[in-house]
């Protein structure tokens, strides 16, 4: 089954590597946005199966973006996985407490990223 992932990250290179990884390794469809504001608009229109969301972004960071996604009826139930360089357990707990489905540590391995996303979301 082809999944549709929305990727929100302000870094062009990381966004592009992530997209290539998920498209070529897993065969998923990937949409991407470089800011939380653009990502929310895209999520409302496309309603992806899951969102990969960078925590540290200028202006509207990942946690603010997640709160806005959760407050909108269209996007409220889309599972969100945070991408973070701060992968300590206390940070993971903080992010899951505000509604994340899980967290993935940056930098990640592009060869195993799709499998890690699937494992978090319980996808086969």
């Amino acid at each position, binding site marked *: 089954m082809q999944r549709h992932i929305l990727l929100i990250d302000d*870094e062009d290179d*990381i966004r*592009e590597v992530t997209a*290539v990884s998920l498209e070529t*390794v897993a*065969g998923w469809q990937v949409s991407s946005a470089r800011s939380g504001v653009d990502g929310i608009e895209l999520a409302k229109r496309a309603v992806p199966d899951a969102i990969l969301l960078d925590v540290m972004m200028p202006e509207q960071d990942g946690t603010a973006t997640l709160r806005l996604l959760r407050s909108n009826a269209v996007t409220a139930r889309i599972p969100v996985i945070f991408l973070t*360089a701060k992968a300590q357990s206390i940070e993971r707990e903080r992010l899951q407490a505000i509604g994340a489905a899980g967290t993935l540590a940056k*930098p*990640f*391995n592009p060869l195993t990223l799709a499998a890690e996303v699937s494992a978090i979301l319980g996808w086969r």
Partner: protein
Amino acid sequence: MTSPEDFAKKLDELWRKHLPLMRSRIETIHSALEAVRDNRLTPNLRAEAAQEAHKLAGSLGTFGHAGSDAAAEIQRLLSGNVALGSVELGRIQQLLKMLSQQTESRFPSRST
């Protein structure tokens, strides 16, 4: 889905596309080091260099590049208010030289 060879080729293309950005980030760290030597390092320049090292570590790591760890160590040394003495500066210089050489070499795989 594509073959591992196609995936590696796509990653290689992205690496070449974003190499100028990597070089620019390394240059920012170089500038901060020169500013320390000339006794004109400002908190802003130091913070900018630490941020660039952070981004470099993330980018290189995502590409599976061996230089990611060196960039992360530079970030640690530049972050915060720790005084940059000769030992720290020497280490940053060493890491930066290694990073520059690795970045200019062929696309290095995660296994290297």
